[in-house]
């Protein structure tokens, strides 16, 4: 049930817990761990390992999945970046690529998938429709702003975007991960 360390309430004063008390370890173990992994070498090691394990969920919401499939294909081969071919289980994945239009009927399911993914998790909005509604922006059955439900890290415009454009978005996301704090998510 626990989706990650951040969902638990933090100790009120984290610095107090770390104050050295002779002979006894007093304080919240979580705070100590948080402090320890925040140190630069460990932090960069963890971020580096996250960089090379961006596994996307296989959630196709619309037609951009064709180009996502082409990106997974032989010419572009994102496994060079540690991006494995899309996996069926969201419990094992870190990356949600919203591939196209999000309809009102699909939104509930996307939310379920997103909540089932363990932290840290990232989302890329692929294609015009996922970013802003695109060609169908005045339709009665689609969601124009998916970022109200799912926090989006990178927006990739295009209808559909070229596989290279998606790869560039992944590279942009990797830059973001490299810079971020371990427990920021």
């Amino acid at each position, binding site marked *: 049930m626990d989706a990650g360390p951040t969902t638990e309430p933090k100790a009120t004063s984290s610095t107090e817990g770390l104050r050295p008390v002779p002979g006894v370890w007093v304080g919240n173990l979580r705070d100590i761990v948080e402090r320890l992994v925040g140190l630069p070498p460990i932090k960069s090691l963890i971020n580096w390992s996250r960089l090379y394990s961006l596994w996307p969920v296989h959630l196709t919401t619309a037609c951009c999945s064709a180009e996502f499939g082409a990106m997974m294909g*032989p*010419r*572009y*081969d994102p496994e*060079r970046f540690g991006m494995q071919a899309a996996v069926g289980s969201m419990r094992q994945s870190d990356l949600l690529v919203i591939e196209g239009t999000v309809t009102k009927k699909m939104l509930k399911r996307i939310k379920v998938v997103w909540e089932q993914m363990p932290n840290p998790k990232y989302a890329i909005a692929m294609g*015009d429709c996922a*970013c*802003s*509604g*695109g*060609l169908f*922006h005045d339709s009665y059955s689609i969601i124009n702003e998916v*970022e109200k439900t799912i926090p989006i*890290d*990178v*927006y*990739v*415009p*295009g*209808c559909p*975007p*070229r596989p*290279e*454009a998606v*790869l*560039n*978005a992944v*590279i*942009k996301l990797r830059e*973001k991960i490299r810079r971020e704090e371990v427990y920021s998510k």
Partner: protein
Amino acid sequence: MSVAEAFWEGVKHIFKKTFTVKHPYQQHELPDGYRGRHLLYLDRCTGCGICAWICPEKTITMVHVTLEKTYPQNPEKRFPQYWYVRCCFCHFCTDYCPTAALDYTKDYDLAEYEKDLIIWSPERLSKVPEAHVGYRTKFHGWAGVDHHLFREGGLGE
């Protein structure tokens, strides 16, 4: 027996030339006339707004820019501004432009962290990318007279 044949066929492919383009370091070569982002020639645009009219998704808004330079053909300095998260790259705007002020480029890398950064102002659109050939001018003629969408479309009459 045919299992072995199939297996052998797979093994043969190990020794073939790699098909993968190592993307950030190598680029797949795009043909002329690839429909990437638009290029705006500020010295040709008259600000007529046909591009904004033909756009299927309200990507284009006509904005007044505050540039120091003056443009004789466009005294009001009214130029198109693109919001690329809406653009479907159909390039009807380019084909319908009566003065060939818009052109195709091979630039497709438009991803950003924030949605608002994907708004392309006329100044940003007018930057000529590397290895640009001027496809519209080259193949469809100067001032659009050569292009059937404008010449023979219902718009001219």
